[in-house]
């Protein structure tokens, strides 16, 4: 019973390796099937996302099991082994469990706290369940990982605030307007970041989309892409009267929107709030506009400021998440250790019962004809003596605690049991060893 994790992620592998190593669609089931039939690999689950590929396995032997999985990945994807090994990490024992919990809780993600990973992990688990490639150990590991992730999400604020410029813009829009589906949005100019933010706003359901550009053709193209309307650049000011959210990103060297414009517009709008986002450098909207009532102007630095605060907040929350993970790893280890005690308990019972039977038969033979009642009395006597004697070691074995392995070892030696020790790992010391290559 050894859990190992072998995989690569955004930190350890460049995108081309991640692409090559991914298990998509039918490849996934094929791979699970191959691993399932590999000797020494008792259980396996494959998690494959755009940022990571990981194989969770329960192997009979850590070293040979890891080698087998590594070789499998290389062979399956036809990646030269030495190239692949540069990107792979291998965790076993406690570190493997910690790793799985951290991945599920999104503490190991590129954007800490992003929520997709948990769903992806659940999907991977579902496929393993469907293909019956996972068993007691990995099922418990997955269920626990999912509950740890939920705990981290509810007990910390890890996923609470936006950590990208475009999400921050949407989050702010929602804090100003509540319902975006009745709001009109205008994109002034173009540019990668502006278009991304525009897309986010549109996917959050703004009602009307207007696009304006000094080159009208460019405006028309973007309008088509966004399912909106193109506005002549000379006419954008009057159109602002009916616009609630503006993203501005033009190459103009000066302000294209000044206080006077907005004062007039606000009067015509009867002071309905406006949210202006200026991501142009140099700025295109006079910063003093922010002083007008019901007008909220954010420039690129302001948005960066918001994002930075949020990232700091997330990192602080991630520390709390790590504590929760540590706590849960400990309870998982206890559960695992209590499993280690089961074979020893069974062996102890079997041995005691065998001795009792043997001695009982000997004695009964020597005593000769006894009444049925006497035989029963003697049997009951031996039973109760044996049960009472093995009660104490059994209880000690059952009480799951961190020193179970030591107790299993002691009990095994004292009673000369040979089952309990056999399928345990070679040396408790190498649990949790990390080999990073």
């Amino acid at each position, binding site marked *: 019973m050894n859990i190992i994790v072998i995989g690569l992620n955004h930190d350890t592998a460049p995108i081309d390796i991640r692409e090559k190593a991914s298990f998509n669609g039918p490849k996934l089931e094929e791979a699970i099937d191959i691993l399932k039939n590999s000797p020494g690999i008792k259980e396996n689950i494959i998690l494959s996302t755009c940022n990571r590929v990981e194989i969770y396995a329960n192997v009979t032997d850590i070293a040979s099991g890891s080698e087998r999985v590594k070789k499998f990945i290389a062979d399956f994807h036809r990646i030269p082994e030495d190239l692949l090994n540069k990107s792979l990490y291998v965790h076993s024992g406690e570190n493997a469990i910690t790793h799985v919990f951290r991945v599920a809780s999104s503490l190991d993600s590129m954007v800490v706290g992003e929520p997709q990973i948990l769903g992806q992990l659940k999907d991977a688990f579902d496929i393993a369940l469907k293909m019956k490639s996972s068993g007691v150990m990995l099922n418990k590991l997955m269920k626990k990982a999912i509950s740890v992730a939920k705990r981290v999400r509810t007990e910390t604020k890890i996923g609470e605030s936006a950590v990208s410029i475009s999400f921050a813009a949407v989050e702010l829009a*929602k804090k*100003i307007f*509540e319902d975006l589906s009745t709001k009109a949005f205008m994109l002034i100019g173009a540019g990668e970041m502006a278009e991304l933010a525009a897309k986010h706003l549109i996917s959050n359901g703004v009602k009307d989309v207007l696009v304006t550009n000094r080159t009208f053709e460019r405006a028309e193209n973007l309008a088509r892409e966004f399912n909106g309307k193109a506005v002549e650049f000379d006419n954008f000011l009057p159109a602002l009267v009916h616009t609630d959210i503006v993203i501005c990103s033009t190459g103009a060297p000066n302000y294209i929107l000044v206080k006077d414009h907005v004062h007039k517009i606000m009067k015509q709008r009867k002071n309905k*709030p406006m949210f202006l986002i200026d991501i142009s450098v140099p700025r295109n909207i006079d910063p003093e506009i922010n002083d007008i009532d019901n007008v909220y102007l954010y420039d690129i630095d302001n948005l960066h400021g*918001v994002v930075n605060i949020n990232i700091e907040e997330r990192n602080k929350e991630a520390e709390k998440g790590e504590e929760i993970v540590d706590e849960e790893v400990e309870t998982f280890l206890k559960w695992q250790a209590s499993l280690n005690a089961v074979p020893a308990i069974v062996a102890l019972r079997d041995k005691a019962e065998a001795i009792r039977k043997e001695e009982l038969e000997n004695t009964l033979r020597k005593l000769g004809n006894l009444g049925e009642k006497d035989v029963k009395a003697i049997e009951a006597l031996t039973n109760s003596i044996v049960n009472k004697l093995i009660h104490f070691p059994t209880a000690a074995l059952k009480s799951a605690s961190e020193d179970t392995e030591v107790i299993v070892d002691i009990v095994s030696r004292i009673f000369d049991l040979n089952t309990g020790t056999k399928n345990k790992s070679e040396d408790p010391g190498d649990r949790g060893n990390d080999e990073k290559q």
Partner: protein
Amino acid sequence: MLPIKTETLFFELALTLYFIATIIGIIGLFKGKKDTFKSILVLAIIGFILHTANIAVRYIEGGHIPITNLHEGASFFSWCIVALFLLLEYRYKIGLLGSFIMPIVLVLMLSSSMFPRGISPSLNPVLKSYWFGIHTILAFLGDAAFAMAAGIGVMYLIQERYVKSKHLSGLFQKLPSLQSLDEINYRLISLGFPLLTLAIITGVIWANTAWGTYWRWDPKEVWSLITWLIYALVLHLRLTVGWRGKKAAGLSIIGFILVIFTFFGVNLLLKGLHAFV
């Protein structure tokens, strides 16, 4: 004689629960979890039930609507606010609202507890009129809507501060959006204004039946009129020139200060005909 009267017991228990809810609400502003706001709601509901029992017992014992002195008035006022708070929380689920409303309720209840509490057996003859019930209940329901609008207004001003200053920390995440706060504020004033209008109209009619004149420029009447004008202005300016957001929130707070002055200040500082409540 019981050592403590039932209605007093109900009152004190309700007051205690409102007190605890206020404390939790204020702590909740600094480190609130979802449970915090749920517990405020539960405390407010139990407090409200006990409070209702207190008013019911006084009604039965006195044989008339128990809004005849400052103790009863302040108590009924807070009862209306809690009722409206529970309705609003049910409808909009604002969570943080309790942190801003329960302090108002607590202050009113504490002041109520400091006024003489006797149930007057011989009712002022002026109050023996069905206009009395209609007028007072309308007035307090309207005032409760204004109290709520003021609480929402404070929340608006705080949230507006966050968005304007671009420091999106603290309560920013927990407070509702500016638009919904502004809308709720507007709806509350649109609810309170007709109630206050009707209260003044019924008051005028009642004055005529009781004293033979419609309007005597009594301080209570004057201050009610000023309050009415303020809220009329709030609504008028919003509809004509779009005085919304910060200005509307600010005015709704000023309006509520006037409400409170009309209620307590006039009775305690300026003596007039309207000497009961």
